């Protein structure tokens, strides 16, 4: 059985935020909630690196371990999802997550209390009937049930962000790393895409 993962190639990410925009648009994510974001280290300095971060769908997910109402679960494909109907918005999952993936919209609870947790679903919807209105409203589009991959990865212009079965992603990344090698220029086009065919001979 597949084990779904994201893989972000920091050599290729150009911080375009296309993944963030694709996610927000596809799932109609409310204002103030970011299921995915791009983090840049050493911004503006030559050699800067960017990486697109969302829920990493951990194999041994700390959010599942700490959820007091036990409404976070693993699907057969290794995707971490949750049941919003049972979420009490306590925020324990946010404290436990090393990536800051769980997000909390404001309201509609009274007195400024946070709403139910929202996070990346790997475009796999949630515990509602596949493709139903209820599923879309609570969790967003279920692209996985359409035989498609998460839109953030499919929209990535440089193919820095990959999604799918971990073993197959490893194959793709291994081939990429072998082709581009590790040379003097450790940053830029050549590192990301490899040398020209003529030059490589």
């Amino acid at each position, binding site marked *: 059985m597949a084990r779904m993962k994201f893989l972000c190639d920091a050599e290729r990410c150009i911080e375009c935020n296309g993944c963030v925009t694709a996610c927000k648009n596809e799932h109609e994510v409310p204002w103030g909630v970011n299921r995915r974001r791009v983090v840049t280290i050493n911004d503006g300095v030559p050699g800067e690196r960017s990486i697109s971060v969302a829920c990493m769908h951990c194999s041994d997910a700390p959010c599942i371990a700490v959820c007091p109402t036990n*409404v976070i679960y693993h699907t057969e494909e290794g995707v971490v999802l949750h049941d919003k109907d049972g979420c009490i918005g306590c925020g324990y999952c946010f404290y436990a997550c090393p990536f800051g993936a769980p997000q909390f919209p404001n309201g509609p609870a009274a007195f400024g209390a946070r709403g139910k947790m929202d996070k990346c679903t790997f475009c796999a919807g949630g*515990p*509602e009937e*596949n493709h139903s209105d209820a599923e879309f409203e609570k969790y967003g589009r*279920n692209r996985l049930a359409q*035989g498609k991959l998460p839109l953030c990865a*499919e929209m990535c212009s440089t193919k820095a962000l990959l999604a799918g079965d971990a073993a*197959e992603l490893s194959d*793709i990344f291994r081939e990429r790393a072998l082709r581009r090698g590790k040379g003097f220029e450790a940053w830029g086009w050549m590192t990301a895409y490899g040398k020209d065919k003529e030059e490589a001979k």
Partner: protein
Amino acid sequence: MKPRFPLRLPAAVAALVLLAGCGEQPQVVQYEQGKYQGKADSRPWEGSSFNGDKAAWERALHDRVRSQNEYKRVE
């Protein structure tokens, strides 16, 4: 004619109301540590797109994942 026990009916009603409190069911969810207690989810191939054909779903996904390797697409 006056009833023999004029307060019998109100007393019976009051007793019923008071006793109803004794039969109150616990309204607090009992959580079991480490066990998912939310709603059951359907699997991706069980929707209208694949009608339960798991092999077709896996093939579709495999093709999508492989198409992310642009070396395979451009060469």
